[in-house]
């Protein structure tokens, strides 16, 4: 190898590394595509914070917004709680149901959270973590949009915004039940 070629080769070898870093630092490491999108939503039967039974199966035929949260998840869960409540009120008569699943939490703290935000949609506790794992939850908040046929169609990581809620729900509502 001639010295001239060698002189070029060393800086050139840094190019792929720099390209990889340039790409890697731009993407959010927490933004992992869920393999569950497009797949049937796992059934679950939990108890609400008030002790009433709550099963996903019972909501078949409705568009379900399944939100995983925790009272210690500040600020994201605190930001989205009013958004969920607002949109649930706006859409409940159009065949949309919002279900909250409280994970890794204490019952009293969770009850205080729903009380403080005046949440009127059903909230259940996942005490064993099984529902969280079934939905591949790796943090809170995470929200799944489930269509009328019971398939997961979208996953939203982080606090849900009015826009994200509306966009996903309107899309699923516009679909005819196949």
């Amino acid at each position, binding site marked *: *190898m001639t*010295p001239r070629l*060698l002189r070029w080769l*060393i800086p050139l*070898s840094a190019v792929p590394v720099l390209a990889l870093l340039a790409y890697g630092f731009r993407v959010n490491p927490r933004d*992992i*595509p*869920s*393999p*569950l999108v497009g797949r049937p939503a796992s059934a679950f039967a939990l108890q609400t914070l008030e002790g009433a039974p709550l099963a996903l199966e019972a909501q078949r035929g409705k568009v379900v917004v399944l939100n995983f949260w925790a009272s210690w998840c500040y600020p994201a869960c605190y930001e989205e709680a009013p958004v969920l409540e607002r949109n649930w009120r706006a859409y409940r008569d159009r065949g949309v149901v919002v279900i909250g699943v409280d*994970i*890794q939490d204490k019952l009293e703290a969770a009850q205080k959270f729903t009380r403080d935000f005046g949440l009127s949609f059903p909230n259940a506790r996942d005490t*064993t*973590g*099984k529902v*969280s*794992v*079934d*939905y*591949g*939850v*790796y*943090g809170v908040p995470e929200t799944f949009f489930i269509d009328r046929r019971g398939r997961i169609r979208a996953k939203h990581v982080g606090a849900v915004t009015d826009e994200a809620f509306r966009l996903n729900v309107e899309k699923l509502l516009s679909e005819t039940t196949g």
Partner: protein
Amino acid sequence: MRARAPLLGLALALVLAAGAAAQARRVAEQQVQDVAAQLRCVVCQNLSVADSPSEMASQMRAIVRERLEAGEAPAQVVQYFVERYGEWILLSPRRHGFNLLVWAMPAVAVAVGFTLVGLVLVRWTRRGAAAGRVAATPVDTAMRDRIRRELEP
């Protein structure tokens, strides 16, 4: 007296059953750790489910145990998590397809490094040898006289 034999049998059966159950649990504990060590603790930064003290990890270990006790093979339990979280849940990427690049890159980098060092060394030794030849050229007589003069007391 007659009642003793069945009682004894029952006691023996109980002891045996307890022993068998304890053994099954012990085996499972190591298996649980083995499976959990392959899984990424989802709420941590670079910790395995086996190493994390978090509640989520302990719940995941309980799920691993439950599935193993239900008779699933370790690979099936791992697959259960992969189906829900994607391959991201695995601490070491599987050795196929694009992932092979991750496994091959360090070896390739070391090989390239050694080659470069080798090439540079060859160049340096060659230059050194060339410099040696230059030094070996005879010193002219005027210089030799001068050196002799200056060395004399």
